[in-house]
């Protein structure tokens, strides 16, 4: 192999001297200088490792602590804040496993449980877009698999620099092809997600991958190594020099700092091996051969062994010589840090091992016993018969806790003072019409078919709704029609203006997207994308975002089941907008009652639900038409969101609705245009107040709903019952979007503006 990564530079003294840096050697050479700084540990953290061990760490131990204590694995900067997300008992009634597990697990009834999680793969996707995005899908799928579930669908929330920037032309097509390659080969439908553009993501795209899996209640698995004498089995792909140092160097340092020599090798995924691994694991679970299981992601064997050992009661002894290698020149530190894809680690009773290995053989999955569970509370590892790791596993798994300084950004006041009320507004119907067409044709709001048609949305035959619907809907049980709905949302502009409210708005929108399909929202996952935690302003954004999410979930009475924090998303000293991406899971008692977003029938009344206020801070109109960001974001109203969701769920269950669509980016005008285009018919609407505000304001807790012709009266009574303000604004039908007294746009013109943008940009 070529010597380019930190791992190799660090481990090396040993091989160069022809002897291994064993625990014994380390104890006898306390003063030997060690490259802790190059591995990303601070002097204080290195001292802490020495205190914990009572000696200097061996090269392998140093590698292990450096990856486990990296920001990526330890959440050291965010942990003090994330504690706020622990759900109160009132929120967690349906929760079977929560934060701290590989993924949260929620009871959805009829004996089914659903597990879902969203995770970032931002930096790898910038370095090598196709492989980075592909392995992002693979990693989150294994997280779901490790909970005992069959992965059933994926979604991706993507954010890039300006759509016409040259680097976006490199990154976006690669990311989309990587996601479609891995997900399609694996046979998982991609049922939704997001695509957004902003200059703040140039040089730092956000690639957040979500996976959802289904299991029966009794199938839940845990990442624990229990029972002295039980065997530790590594199975899946062989271990090679993939992404060595990735966890600590790639995910935690900025690109500028990463010199060419520091760049770790890119990981290349193999979705066909992952498919074998999925089926193999599910058969192992069904046969009752697995006591504990952990996927291998960032920090590979180091992370899997320490987390399994720390999760159990005893200890673990591992022989690193037993790890099957793709490259025989790897040493112990490199084996520990390797991020080779498509690997899992299981704990099995000795009597189960032959059956375990036989099932793996059947699926062509290489499996090797590499160690066993012990009762001594230590994680020990040997190499060529000598001990190279001997640590209390909890010290590596828990990691340090940083209380980093927090300060409100210096420009917060100036930003809030830039009131969008000062922007010139379109005067008259022709100007309003032109603004709407410009917004629909912008990359942000344009039709996303160019992306989503590369994904297989229907494989498996259980996809009920997918893009361009507000939320993806999957059937879980064919007999009863039980199903789930999923949506992700984030809005960097709102969060830049106010991370507390912006995060609540993202939560509100994902919640509303799930609700308008007719589903009852039940759980939340989140991926917090932010800049450097060493910047007090970023830490303030993080603290505010977490506080907003915690308060928001409490108000909605749903739990956060898990998630991921991605820090150091910045170019130079400029951080991205704080961008929490919130995923919401909902349950539909019967997917045959789901509500589509398109106007599916002629002659249906169109009802505007919720209150519209002149709220334009951070809006799509201000951003797209004026490049403006300032003022206050819209006011979240969680109580109103809850009532709206209750109304749509009740109306859907009663079969009253032929369409419902949430109002978000671009307001009512964009929502009506989208519902016309996806339903293939026009509408005539009269605005109940000042045209510009009604068309483009982005007030929260709003939707348009179309009751089935003849059932409008019943729907109205239901609106009153749920305390949701409702106004009849028009009727579906015709072949144009007709806003009375303002403008009329033929569907053909609307469609042309909406659909030509992405193909023109990306071919």
């Amino acid at each position, binding site marked *: 192999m*070529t010597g380019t990564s930190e791992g190799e530079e660090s481990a090396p003294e040993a091989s160069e001297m022809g002897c291994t840096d064993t625990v014994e050697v380390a104890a006898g050479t306390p003063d030997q200088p060690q490259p802790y700084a190059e591995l990303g540990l601070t002097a204080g953290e290195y001292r802490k490792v020495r205190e914990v061990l009572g000696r200097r760490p061996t090269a392998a131990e140093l590698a292990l602590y450096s990856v486990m204590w990296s920001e990526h694995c330890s959440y050291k900067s965010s942990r003090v804040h994330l504690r706020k997300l622990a759900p109160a008992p009132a929120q967690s009634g349906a929760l079977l496993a929560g934060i701290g597990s590989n993924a949260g697990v929620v009871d959805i009834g009829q004996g089914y449980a659903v597990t879902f999680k969203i995770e970032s793969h931002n930096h790898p996707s910038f370095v090598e877009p196709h492989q980075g995005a592909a392995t992002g899908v693979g990693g989150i799928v294994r997280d779901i698999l490790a909970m005992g579930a069959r992965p059933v669908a994926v979604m991706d929330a993507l954010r890039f620099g300006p759509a016409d920037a040259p680097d976006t032309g490199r990154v976006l097509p690669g990311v989309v092809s990587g996601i479609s390659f891995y997900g399609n080969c694996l046979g998982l439908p991609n049922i939704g997600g997001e695509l957004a553009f902003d200059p703040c993501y140039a040089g730092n795209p956000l690639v957040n991958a979500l996976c959802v899996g289904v299991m029966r209640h009794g199938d839940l698995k845990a990442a624990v190594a229990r029972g002295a004498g039980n065997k530790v089995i590594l199975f899946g792909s062989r271990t090679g020099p993939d992404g060595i140092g990735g966890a600590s160097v790639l995910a935690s340092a900025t690109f500028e700092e990463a010199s060419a020599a520091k760049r770790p090798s890119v990981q290349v995924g193999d979705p*066909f091996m992952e498919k074998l691994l999925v089926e193999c694991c599910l058969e192992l679970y069904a046969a009752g051969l697995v006591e504990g299981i952990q996927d291998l992601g960032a920090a590979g064997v180091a992370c899997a062994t320490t987390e399994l050992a720390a999760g159990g009661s005893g200890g673990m002894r591992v022989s690193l010589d037993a790890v099957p290698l793709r490259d025989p020149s790897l040493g112990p530190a490199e084996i520990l840090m390797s991020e080779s894809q498509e690997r899992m680690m299981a704990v099995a009773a000795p009597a189960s091992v032959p059956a375990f290995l036989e099932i793996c053989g059947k699926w062509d999955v290489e499996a090797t016993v590499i160690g066993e569970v012990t009762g001594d509370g230590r994680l020990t590892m040997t190499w060529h018969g000598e001990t190279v790791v001997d640590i209390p596993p909890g010290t590596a798994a828990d990691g340090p806790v940083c209380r980093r300084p927090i300060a409100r950004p210096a420009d917060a006041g100036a930003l809030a003072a830039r009131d969008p009320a000062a922007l010139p507004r379109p005067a008259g119907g022709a100007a309003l019409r032109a603004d709407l067409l410009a917004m629909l044709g912008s990359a942000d709001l344009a039709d996303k078919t160019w992306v989503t048609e590369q994904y297989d949305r229907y494989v498996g035959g259980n996809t009920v709704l997918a893009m361009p619907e507000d939320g993806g809907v999957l059937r879980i049980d064919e007999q009863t029609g039980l199903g789930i709905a999923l949506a992700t949302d984030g809005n960097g502009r709102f969060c830049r203006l106010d991370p507390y409210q912006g995060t609540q708005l993202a939560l509100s929108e994902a919640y509303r997207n799930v609700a308008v399909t007719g589903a009852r929202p039940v759980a939340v996952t989140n991926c917090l994308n932010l800049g450097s935690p060493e910047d007090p302003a970023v830490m303030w954004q993080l603290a505010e975002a977490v506080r907003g999410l915690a308060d928001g979930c409490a108000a909605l009475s749903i739990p956060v089941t898990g998630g991921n924090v991605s820090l150091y998303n910045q170019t130079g000293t400029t951080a991205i907008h704080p961008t929490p991406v919130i995923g919401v899971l909902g349950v539909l008692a019967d997917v045959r009652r789901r509500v589509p977003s398109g106007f599916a029938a002629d002659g249906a009344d169109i009802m505007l639900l919720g209150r519209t206020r002149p709220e334009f801070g951070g809006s799509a109109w201000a951003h797209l038409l004026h490049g403006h960001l300032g003022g206050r974001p819209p006011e979240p109203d969680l109580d109103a969101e809850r009532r709206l969701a209750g109304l749509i769920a009740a109306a859907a269950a009663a079969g009253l609705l032929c369409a419902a669509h949430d109002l978000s980016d671009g307001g009512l005008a964009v929502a009506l245009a989208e519902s016309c285009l996806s339903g293939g018919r026009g509408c005539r609407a009269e605005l109940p107040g000042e045209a510009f505000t009604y068309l483009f304001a982005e007030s929260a807790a709003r939707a348009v709903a179309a009751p089935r012709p003849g059932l409008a009266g019943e729907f109205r009574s239901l609106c009153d019952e749920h305390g949701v303000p409702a106004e009849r604004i028009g009727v579906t039908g015709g072949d144009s979007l007709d806003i009375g007294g303002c403008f009329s746009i033929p569907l053909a013109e609307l469609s042309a503006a909406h659909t030509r943008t992405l193909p023109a940009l990306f071919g």
Partner: protein
Amino acid sequence: MARVIVDVMLKPEIHDPQGEAVLGACHRLGFGQVSGVRQGKRFEIEIDGPAGEASLAAIAGLAGELLANPVIEDFSVHAAELPGRRHSPGSLRACG
């Protein structure tokens, strides 16, 4: 006119699932002596004029930009020794 060859291979440390799949197929077909396969691609590029130093440098620039992904692949550039002779499956069979 001259012909320039560009060979593109994944860097040695990069995982090659395609090569592994070919290796598996070798064993299934009874070629047990095959112990490793790595798969790359070869470009045969026709240029006007001789394959001199300047042409080769220009082709190397092209390879870095278009033919190879330098993040995960290495490439080499050389002038073709002889007018390209093709090996078709038929000719291989004929060679025995």
